[in-house]
C-alpha cells in the first residue's frame, strides 16, 4: 500500500520501469505542494507574498480582509480542490478498471447527474423550507441532507450502469447508455425546476457551473472525511483492482471475490462522486482524464502506483483548473468550462487510441 512496498516490488520485478514511478511519484508530491502553495499565494485579489506569508504564520495582514481571504477563502478552496480532484480521479480510475472501460468516469456515465438529481430533489423539489438550505442553509443538517441525497442519487445511476456494462461488452455502448441516463435525469431536473423561483433557479445554475469556493471551513469537517473514506477504499483494494485489469473472469479465477469487490468499489465511487457533486457541483471530465494522465506519467497500469498517482495528479489538476478559472479571464470562468477544456481532449485521444487496444481488449 505504501510507496515503499510498491517500489520494492518494482525493484525486484522490473528494473527498467522502476525508475519512472520511483522518480515521478515524489516529483508529483513536490509539484502538488508547489501548486497548493501557489494557489494560496495567488488569487483574484493581489496580496503581496510577504503579506500572505505573515498571515499564514499567524500574523495580521495590512488589510483585515486579506487575512479572511487567505485563511477563509484560499486555504479551504485549495483543500477542497485537492480533495475533489483526487476523489474524481480515484472514482474515475475505479470505474475504468471495474467496467474495463477507458472512458468511464462519474460525469460521463451519468453518476454525477444522478447525484445532481439527489441534490435537485432536496433543493428544488421539496419547496421553500428545505429549499432555503441551498442559499442560506440549515447549516449542517442541510449539508448532510444534500450530501446523503447526492450519494443515493449517484448509487441509483451506478447500479443500472454496472448492470448494463455486465451485459454489454462494447465500452462505447455503456458510455452512450450513461449519457442517455444523464440526459434523462437532466430532463427530470428541468421538470422539477419548472415550478421554482427564479432566484433558486439562478443558484441552481451557479451550482451546476461547478465551484470549489463554496466549501467553507465549517463545511470541510463533513466534506473531507467523506472524501478520505472514499479514497481509502481505493487504497485498500489496489490488489483487487490489479487482478481486475485482466478481466473479471480471470480475476475470479485468481481468487477475487468479485461480488464483494464490486460492492466496495460501487460504494466508494458513489460516496466520492456524490460528495463532490453535492458540495462542488457536477465537475465535468476531470474523472476520466486524470487516470489516463496518471498512466501516461507513471508509465504503468499497476494500481499500487496508479492510485497514489491519481490522487496527486487529480489534486494538482483540480487546483490548476481552479486557478485558471479565477485568473485566466476577467472575473471568474465557470469551473466546468475549464475542466471540460482539460478533459475533452483526453477523452478524444483515448477514443482514437483505443482502436489499438491500449487498455481494453
Amino acid at each position: 500500500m505504501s510507496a515503499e512496498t510498491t517500489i520494492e516490488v518494482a525493484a525486484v520485478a522490473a528494473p527498467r520501469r522502476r525508475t519512472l514511478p520511483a522518480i515521478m511519484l515524489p516529483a508529483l508530491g513536490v509539484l502538488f505542494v508547489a501548486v497548493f502553495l501557489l494557489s494560496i499565494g495567488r488569487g483574484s485579489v493581489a496580496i503581496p507574498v510577504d503579506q500572505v506569508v505573515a498571515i499564514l504564520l499567524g500574523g495580521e495582514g495590512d488589510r483585515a480582509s486579506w487575512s479572511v481571504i487567505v485563511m477563509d477563502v484560499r486555504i479551504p478552496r485549495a483543500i477542497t480542490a485537492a480533495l475533489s480532484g483526487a476523489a474524481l480521479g480515484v472514482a474515475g480510475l475505479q470505474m475504468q478498471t471495474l467496467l474495463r472501460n477507458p472512458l468511464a468516469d462519474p460525469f460521463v456515465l451519468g453518476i454525477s447527474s444522478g447525484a445532481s438529481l439527489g441534490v435537485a430533489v432536496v433543493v428544488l423539489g421539496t419547496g421553500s423550507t428545505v429549499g432555503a438550505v441551498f442559499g442560506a442553509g440549515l447549516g449542517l443538517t442541510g449539508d448532510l441532507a444534500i450530501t446523503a441525497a447526492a450519494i443515493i442519487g449517484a448509487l441509483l445511476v451506478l447500479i443500472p450502469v454496472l448492470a448494463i456494462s455486465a451485459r454489454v461488452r462494447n465500452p462505447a455502448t455503456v458510455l452512450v447508455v450513461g449519457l442517455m441516463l444523464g440526459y434523462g435525469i437532466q430532463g427530470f431536473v428541468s421538470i422539477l425546476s419548472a415550478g421554482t423561483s427564479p432566484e433558486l433557479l439562478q443558484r441552481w445554475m451557479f451550482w451546476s457551473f461547478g465551484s470549489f469556493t463554496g466549501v467553507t471551513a465549517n463545511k470541510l469537517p463533513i466534506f473531507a472525511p467523506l472524501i478520505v473514506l472514499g479514497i481509502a477504499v481505493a487504497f485498500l483494494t489496489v490488489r483487487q483492482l490489479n487482478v481486475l485489469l485482466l478481466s473479471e473472469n480471470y480475476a475470479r479465477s485468481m481468487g477475487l471475490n468479485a461480488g464483494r469487490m464490486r460492492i466496495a468499489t460501487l460504494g466508494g465511487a458513489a460516496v466520492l462522486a456524490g460528495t463532490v457533486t453535492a458540495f462542488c457541483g457536477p465537475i465535468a471530465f476531470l474523472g476520466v482524464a486524470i487516470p489516463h494522465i496518471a498512466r501516461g506519467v507513471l508509465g504503468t497500469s499497476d494500481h499500487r502506483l496508479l492510485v497514489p498517482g491519481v490522487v496527486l495528479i487529480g489534486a494538482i489538476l483540480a487546483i490548476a483548473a481552479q486557478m485558471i478559472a479565477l485568473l485566466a479571464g476577467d472575473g471568474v470562468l465557470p469551473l466546468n468550462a475549464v475542466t471540460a477544456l482539460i478533459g475533452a481532449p483526453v477523452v478524444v485521444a483515448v477514443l482514437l487510441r483505443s482502436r489499438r487496444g491500449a487498455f481494453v481488449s
Partner: protein
Amino acid sequence: MKPILSTALLALTGALVAVPSFAQPAENPDACLTAFDPAADYFPQKADVEYAENFTVAYHGSYKVVTVVEPSPGAPSETYVLLQCGAPLPELPAELAGAPVIEVPVATIHSESATHFPMLEAIGMIDRLTGVSSAAYTTTEAVIAGAAAGTIIEFAPTFTIDVETVIDGEPALFMTGGFTTAEHGQLADAGIAVVANAEWLEPTVLGRAEWVKYIALFFNQEGEAATAFDAIDAQYAATMAEVASLTEGERPLVFTGAASEGIFYAAGGRSYVAEMIADAGGRYIFADNDDTGSTGLTDIEVMLDEAAEAEVWINANSAYRTLADIVADDPRLAALPAAQAGAVWNYDRITSPGGGVAYFDLGVLRPDLVLIDLVKIFHPEVMADRPFTFYRPITVE
C-alpha cells in the same frame, strides 16, 4: 405568509394613493370611428417621451408610427403602425411598407413580462390583460386572481411559449418581454400582432419606468400614462433632492448581490442598482465597473476585499432572515462589517405565494418608491416618516 402579504399590499396601496389620482378621459377612447375625417387629429393626447431612449412615437392624424430601437439585445429596430380603429388604411411611406398595422385601441393583450402588469394597472387597462406567461411570479393581485378564475390564461408556465394556447386566446396584441424567441415568429405568422417591449434595455430607471407611455400607445391612454409617470418622476426628483447636498463622507459605502458557491454576482457599475445607490446618497463599491447588468461572475475574494469597509449590503439573499442564516450559508460573508452591523437588506418585503417579488415588477414602474427605500436605508434620519415598500432588513438578535 398570507397575512404578511396582505398587510404589505395594504401598505403598497397606501403608497399608490399618495400619487395624484388618474383622471378618466372625457371621451371614450375605445370607440371605433364611424365616420372618417382625413383632416382630423384623432389622437389629441400625445405621448411626450422625456427619458426613454429605446422607443419613439410619431403622430399622423389617424395613425401613430411607433419604433422600438432595440427590441431584443442586438436586434434591428422594429416599427409598427398603430391605426385608429375605424379609420381607413392610410397611404404609408415606402419605408413603412412592411410594418405591421395594428388597430388601436386594442381590446385584449397577452404579455410576457410581469413588469407590464403594474403599468397596465396604472393606465386602468389591467382588465384588457387576457394572457400572461406565468402568474406564478407576479405580485399584481388582479393577475393572480384572474389566472385563478381562468379569465387570464398562462401560456408559458414552463418558460417556453405554448403557441397554440396563445393562438387560441386570440389576443389583439402580444407584447414580448424584450427577448426575441422563435415562437414570436410563429405567432406573427398566425396573424397575431407581436410587439416588442424592451424596457429593460433602457439606460436609466426613469427611462425604464417611462415605458408605461409605450404600453399606453396601444390603448390610446397617453393621458393616463403621462399623469402616472409625471407623479413618479416628480417624487423621484424630490427624493433625490433630499440627499443631494450630502458630502462624500456622509454617503455610506454600499455593496450588492449574493454569493453562490463562492462566486459572487453583483450589480454592474452602470446598472439601475448602481444608478439608484448614487441617487439615494450612497457610494457603490463597483461604481467604476462598466457593466450595465451584473458584474458577471466575481470571485468571492474580490468581494471580500472590496466590501471589507462597506457599511451597507443590499440585494443580498432572500433566504437571509437573521445573521445566523448568513453564518450558516457562508461565515466569510457573515464576518463582513455590514453583516455584523445588521445592515443587510433584501428587496422581498412584498412577495406573492408563487415566489414573485414586487421589487421586480412594481419596482420597474416605481423607481421613486425604490429610491425612497434606499434613502431610508442609507440615511435613516431622512424621510423617516415614509414607510418601506420593497426592502426589509435582516434581524440581529
